Every structure is written in structure tokens, then in C-alpha cells.
């Protein structure tokens, strides 16, 4: 009964989303305020029924309803309760439903928080979101119904959730990732609404900026969680693989980053309007493309679970309509009038322009690498795979350049910054960073001096010290430091935290790659091994019985320079329902290093192959990502977004022409 209710709710949600597309858009076109007002209530209805459907599916999982095919193939009666609930998004159908739930949530949020928007704008935005929902709901109802029953002969028990996904990291990774992906739909909807209305002013940028920022923050967390999960769950210590599906989530993030910066320019200076619109379309299109790549089976990947060409055709048609349609609209309606507002070579605009160029070039290289096997196949050049060397070759220099330039951006004025001023501000950070960078590898690991580490430390501290210099400069006229700090706007802090996050991640990525040490060895009971001053002693190995698995568990004591440090219990699990072997890593976590122990295979009596890593600074990768996300969430709280109905068009503030005289960078 409950699955049928869920199915019914999905169909009702589909009907409501059709109404949500048609009515408000018609209303906005004909200026009918009744129709325009319907958007908000329809959005609430759309959310409600999707939420009911989602609750029904969750109920089916919680009650082990194996008559539902999707439940039977992704759950098992022995699965721990928590994982039963999260198994809801363990397969294709359920994760699609989660996608739609997120979309309906964002739509609801737009309906609730955009009361201050002009009515026609609000109606158009909701209409565009409704249109996206129609496509996805049709997709789920026609090709991927999670409520399909397997009657009259249901299986006795389910075939279990993929053991790789039975993990706390997986519980939160997809929701955050989808929050990010789908969140960009709001910004996209704003862009399309602005094109439809022919009203592309700074107000448009101001409205969509918090939404884009929020989505970007979620996506940052989502990607970081995915990387973290891969790190400890796959059992071999890697944290990023340039897998097509990782790239699929990373590309919207890269373009989304460009979008955030371009939006800032459009909001503050009324520049780059057409470009910003295009980026908004790109960002969401790449999110959809990600879905397409993962779901269509067009690329082979470790993530590509449950794919099927028929679904691929559906998503491709959907992609054609959404992306093709919006790009056509863009080509016809985007403003071509050249901005009268100019800017100098040395100005914040220029640095933001560089930011955009570099980020987009990066995205294109990632896209090419991801699609190249497909291109080669389609053109009959054979089947080829593109590996990490390709991506690293382009990605690392581009990011290095971006980060070098990043230090200038916050310090530069809008419109014009005398080069001398920048020089004056930055020579100290530059020298401090240089000294730090040259000394660091020598102190950290004197036996092998690493120039790569020096470069990374230089860039990281260059970003940090330049920000510091900027803060000091801003405080120069305040009576007290505390008073001055209070005067800095919330969005300034947000920017600073996010930029620091980049520095932290950069240092983490580089130093981990350079300084990690790993040792693969055969270990017996009472045998010890030394690695980087850590001593690992295998005490014993025993059998452990889990709820839905059996495992061999090693007990290893770790000492550092003779002092006891930690007891570690890595496991090798065998999940009974699928007969899959899984490595359960033991970790000793620290800000400056992780100790990572994974069990390999048994080699002979009582002896096991073990993999031991010491990974310096690996936590910084995710810490930085969290800082970026925190920055994003902070900036949304800035009070200027709460100014109701602040429809200021092409607002241009007076700009200081002489350095040191009233910088108005916000």
C-alpha cells in the first residue's frame, strides 16, 4: 500500500510541476497577477508531494519491503537500521528521487525567501524551476520508478546495499553533493528569468548571488566528503582519482567558482553581464551533464552503477531541451551593448577577469580529458582512457597561477589600482612567503629538500600573508584593532575565510603528495615495523562477527619515538549477502599527519599483507574545503542580502582614485 501511495504522490508532484511551469510563466507574460501568485502555492505543493514520495520509499526500506524491486536490490534484512535508511539513495532510482527532493526543497526556499522580488521575476524563476522538475519527474516516473513491485514472487531477502556504501561518509556525501548540484538550478532559473524578462541589471546579480554562493558551499562540502570517503573506504590511501564521475562534480564547482566572482563584478560594477548569464547557464548545464554522464553508461567508471542506454537517451533529450533551449534564448536575448563603464589594466576587474579565464580554461581541460575517450570512440579512433597524468599536467600549473593571482584580487581597487600601491602593499608578504617557503622543506625533512614543497608553501603563505596585509591596511585608520575588525563587513570575512581555505587545501594537497610514505609488508604476530619514527607492532589477529559481515581484525599498537600512541584495529570484511571483500582502514588522525593502516590479503599461516601509510597534512585538504564552504555560508548571512527589495540598478559606487584614500572594496 505505502509504495503505491509513494508512486501516486510522485505522479501528483509531476502534475503540480507541470502547473508550476505553465501558470506563473503565462501570468508573467500576460501580466496576470493571479496566475503569477499561483507559483508560490504550487511550489509548496510540489515540495510536499515529493517529500511524501521520499518518505514512502524510506518507509519501504525501514520495513524491509522486498516486494519493491528497488528495496530488494539495495537492502537486506541484516543491514544495520541506519544504513537501511540511507540505502534509499544507494541506487539509481533512489538517488534520482533524492535529486528531485533537493530540487523541490530549493524551489520551496525560493518561494519562501523571494517575497521581496518583483512578482513577475518571482513567477518566472519558479516557472523555470518547475520546468526542470517536469523533466526529472517524467524521467523517474517513466524510466526509473523506485516503487516498482516484484510480484507475485518477491525475493526472501534483499541482495544488500553495496558494502562500499555502508559507511557514515556515504550517508551525507550524496545529499550535500546534490544540494550543490541542484542549488545551481536556482541561479540558472534567475538567469533564464532575467533573459525572458529582458531585465539584466545589477539587481539580477544581487538576487542570484546568495543562491549561487549557497549552492557552491554545499557542493564544496559534497566534493570534500566524497574525497574523504574514498580515502578511508577504498583502502589504498588515495583521495582523488580524476574519475569521470569525480570530474562530473568538479566541473560545476570550477565554473561555479568563476560564476561567484563574475556575479560579484556584475553586482558591484555592472560589468560582464552577458558573461555572467552564460556562466550561470554553464554551471547548471554541467551539473546536468554530470547526471547524464553518470546515469547513461556513456563512460565507464567505478561510480557508474545501474546505468542503461534508454535512460541515457532520455537524459540526453532533456539536456538538449534545457541547455539547447537556454543557450538559444541566451543568443537571442543577452545584451550585446558594450558597457560604458571601463576599467584600468590594474584593477580588481582585471584580476576577476583573469580568475574567470583561468577557471574556465581549467574546466575545459577537465572536460576534454573526461570526454576524450568518448570522442575517440565516436570518431572511430579506438577506445582510449585518459589518466591522472593528463589532468595533473594541466591542472597543477593552472591552479598555481590562479592562486598566485588570487593574492592580488582582494587588495586591488575596483576600476583602477596604481601598480605602485600594489607593490608597496605586497613586497612584505612576498618576502615573508619566500623565506618561509625556502626554509620549510629544510626544516620539515632535511634529508631530501623538495622544491615542489617550497613552491606549495610559497603560494599558500603568499595568499595568507597578502590577506593579512590587506586586513592591516584596512585597519590603519581605526582607533583600536578590535573596533576596526568589527567594521569589516561579514562578506569581507567570508571572502577571507574562503581564500584561506584555498591556501589550506593547496598546502594539504601538495604536501601530502610530496611527503607521504607508505610501506607494504608482510606482518606476523609480534612483528614490528618502523616508518618515519613510528613503530607498528602487530599484537594479534582475530575473527570478528558483524551484523552482515564477518571480518579478520588485526590489533596493532603504534608507538612514536618509544611513547605509546594508539591502538589500531584494521579489518578485512567479507559481506555475506554479496560475498564482497572490503578493507576497513584503521586511522590515527592528526592535524599534521594521519597514520593509515589497511589489511591486504592473508599470506600463509598467521601472516597478513599490510599497508601502512604516514600521510602528512592530508587533513588540510578537507579542512580547506570546509573553510571555503564556511566562507560561502557566512557571505550569505551578510546584511545587504536582507535589505528588502533592494532593487538598485547598475549601482556604481564612488571609487577612490588615489591609493590610500578611502578604499571602498566591500
Amino acid at each position, binding site marked *: 500500500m505505502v509504495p503505491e501511495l509513494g508512486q501516486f504522490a510522485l505522479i501528483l508532484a509531476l502534475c503540480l510541476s507541470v502547473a508550476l511551469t505553465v501558470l506563473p510563466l503565462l501570468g508573467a507574460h500576460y501580466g496576470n497577477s493571479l496566475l503569477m501568485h499561483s507559483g508560490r502555492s504550487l511550489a509548496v505543493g510540489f515540495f510536499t508531494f515529493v517529500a511524501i514520495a521520499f518518505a514512502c520509499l524510506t518507509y519501504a526500506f525501514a520495513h524491509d519491503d522486498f516486494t519493491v524491486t528497488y528495496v530488494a536490490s539495495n537492502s537486506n534484512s541484516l543491514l544495520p537500521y541506519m544504513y537501511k535508511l540511507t540505502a534509499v539513495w544507494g541506487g539509481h532510482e533512489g538517488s534520482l528521487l533524492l535529486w528531485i527532493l533537493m530540487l523541490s526543497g530549493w524551489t520551496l526556499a525560493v518561494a519562501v525567501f523571494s517575497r521581496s522580488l518583483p512578482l513577475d521575476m518571482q513567477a518566472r524563476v519558479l516557472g523555470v524551476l518547475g520546468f526542470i522538475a517536469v523533466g526529472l519527474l517524467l524521467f523517474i516516473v517513466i524510466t526509473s520508478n523506485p516503487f516498482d513491485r516484484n510480484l507475485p514472487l518477491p525475493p526472501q531477502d534483499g541482495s544488500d546495499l553495496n558494502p562500499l556504501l555502508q559507511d557514515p561518509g556515504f550517508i551525507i556525501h550524496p545529499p550535500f553533493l546534490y544540494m550543490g548540484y541542484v542549488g545551481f538550478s536556482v541561479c540558472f532559473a534567475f538567469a533564464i528569468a532575467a533573459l525572458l524578462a529582458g531585465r539584466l541589471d545589477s539587481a539580477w546579480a544581487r538576487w542570484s548571488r546568495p543562491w549561487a554562493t549557497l549552492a557552491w558551499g554545499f557542493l564544496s562540502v559534497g566534493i570534500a566528503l566524497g574525497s574523504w570517503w574514498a580515502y578511508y573506504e*577504498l*583502502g*589504498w590511501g*588515495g583521495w582523488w*582519482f580524476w574519475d569521470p564521475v569525480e570530474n562530473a562534480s568538479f566541473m560545476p564547482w570550477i565554473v561555479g567558482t568563476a560564476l561567484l566572482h563574475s556575479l560579484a563584478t556584475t553586482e558591484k560594477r555592472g560589468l560582464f553581464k*552577458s558573461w555572467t548569464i*552564460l556562466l550561470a*547557464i*554553464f554551471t547548471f*548545464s554541467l551539473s546536468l551533464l554530470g547526471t*547524464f554522464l553518470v546515469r*547513461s*553508461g*556513456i*563512460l*565507464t567508471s*567505478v561510480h557508474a552503477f545501474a546505468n542503461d*542506454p534508454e535512460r*541515457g*537517451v532520455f537524459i*540526453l533529450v532533456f*539536456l*538538449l531541451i534545457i*541547455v*539547447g533551449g537556454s*543557450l*538559444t534564448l*541566451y*543568443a537571442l536575448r*543577452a545584451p*550585446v551593448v*558594450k558597457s560604458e563603464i571601463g576599467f584600468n589594466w590594474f584593477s580588481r576587474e582585471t584580476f576577476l577577469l583573469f580568475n574567470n579565464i583561468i577557471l574556465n580554461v581549467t574546466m575545459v581541460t577537465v572536460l576534454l580529458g573526461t*570526454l576524450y*575517450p*568518448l*570522442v575517440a*570512440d*565516436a570518431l572511430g579512433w*579506438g*577506445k*582510449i*582512457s585518459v*589518466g*591522472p597524468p593528463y589532468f595533473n599536467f594541466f591542472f597543477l600549473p593552472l591552479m598555481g597561477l590562479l592562486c598566485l593571482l588570487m593574492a592580488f584580487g582582494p587588495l586591488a581597487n575596483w576600476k583602477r589600482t596604481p601598480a605602485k600601491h600594489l607593490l608597496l602593499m605586497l613586497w612584505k608578504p612576498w618576502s615573508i612567503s619566500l623565506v618561509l617557503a625556502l626554509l620549510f622543506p629544510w626544516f620539515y625533512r632535511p634529508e631530501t629538500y623538495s622544491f615542489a614543497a617550497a613552491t606549495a608553501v610559497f603560494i599558500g603563505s603568499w595568499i595568507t600573508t597578502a590577506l593579512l596585509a590587506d586586513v592591516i591596511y584596512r585597519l590603519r585608520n581605526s582607533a583600536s584593532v578590535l573596533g576596526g575588525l568589527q567594521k569589516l563587513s561579514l562578506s569581507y570575512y567570508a571572502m577571507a575565510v574562503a581564500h584561506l581555505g584555498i591556501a589550506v587545501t593547496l598546502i594539504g594537497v601538495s604536501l601530502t603528495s610530496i611527503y607521504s610514505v607508505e610501506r*607494504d*609488508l*608482510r606482518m606476523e604476530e609480534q612483528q614490528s615495523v618502523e616508518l618515519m619514527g613510528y613503530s607498528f607492532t602487530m599484537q594479534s589477529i582475530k575473527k570478528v562477527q558483524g551484523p552482515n559481515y564477518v571480518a579478520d581484525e588485526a590489533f596493532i599498537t603504534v608507538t612514536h619515538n618509544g611513547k605509546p600512541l594508539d591502538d589500531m584495529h584494521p579489518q578485512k570484511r567479507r559481506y555475506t549477502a*554479496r*560475498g*564482497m*571483500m572490503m578493507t576497513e582502514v584503521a586511522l590515527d588522525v592528526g592535524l599534521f599527519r594521519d597514520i593509515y593502516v589497511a589489511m*591486504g*590479503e592473508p*599470506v600463509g599461516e598467521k601472516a597478513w*599483507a599490510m*599497508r601502512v601509510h604516514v600521510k602528512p597534512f592530508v587533513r588540510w585538504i578537507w579542512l580547506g574545503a570546509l573553510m571555503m564552504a564556511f566562507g560561502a555560508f557566512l557571505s550569505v548571512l551578510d546584511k545587504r542580502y536582507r535589505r528588502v527589495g533592494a532593487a538598485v540598478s547598475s549601482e556604481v559606487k564612488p571609487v577612490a582614485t588615489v591609493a590610500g584614500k578611502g578604499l571602498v572594496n566591500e
Partner: protein
Amino acid sequence: MNKARLLLFIPLVLFAVLALLFWRGLSLDPNNMPSALLDKPVPAFSLPRLENLQETRDENILKGKVSLLNVWATWCETCYIEHPFLLQLKAQGIHIVGVDYKDKTESAQQWIAKYGNPYNEIVVDEDGRLGLDLGVFGAPETYVVDKNGVIRYKHIGDVNQKTWNEKIKPVVDSLQ
């Protein structure tokens, strides 16, 4: 329409090209064997053995019995997942030949020493030459080769209990 407006059509044109590509891509199954190699002999090769790089092996090691030709590498995360199942297959007496594809030979040797060797023979394809001849799309890939050294089936992705039972074993059984 003025010139500046025409520029705005560039993204649309690029997308159209991309969409065409996807359309073409959908009709191609990456897991499908290029028909050119199906029912053809394994391309000739002469590659060093992983266990002793001084010695070489050629395509004749695939003759005489039905074999699996498994393309793997230490950089390939799925190979790691696949590995235990290959060990099981070996225990069942399946003849498996490994191709260590575009890999660091040293890491591969460590890998085998550490995790066990599911292969009756491993050849080192360091520059990916054999992989190119075979049309390797990415590791892991597994080919079913009959007693005469002719490729009968190709599987992309990991071999696990499910794919073994449903896809590969029937082919192997029919060739015995």
C-alpha cells in the same frame, strides 16, 4: 542581426557539436567489443614476464586451453576490488593471463607479492602497446580466449560473482 549578436551563438554551436557527440556515444556501448577483434586471434606480442623481466612471453601462452586475458594495473582502483575474485577463479582452476598495463613494473611486483598472484602468467605491457592492439579502453578488462588463441568475448570493468555467472562463465563453459 549585428556582429556582436552572432558571437553569442558560439556557445550554442559548441553545445550542438557536443550533443551530436553524445548522441553518437549513446549508441556505442563502451563495454562492447570493437567487432574488429571479436573472433580474431589475440594480436601478436612479445613482452617481458613480470616475475623475470629477462624472459619474454608471446601470444602462444594463450593457446592450448581456454584462458582469461586480464588487463590490470596498480593505478586502477577497480582492479583492487576485482583482485580477490580473480584469486577465487584461479583456485577453481581457471587459466588466467595478466597484462600489467601502463604500469610501474616495480609497484606491480610488490602488488603481486603482497596480495597474491591470481595469474598463471603475467606479461608487462609498460608502454601500452599490446593494450593499443587489443583496443583497451581502461583497466580492468577481461578477454575470453579460446584454445586456439582466438578472442571470443570481452568484458570491461571488474569481474565479480555476478558478471562471472551471467556473462563470462557461459562463454568459458561453451568453449571447454
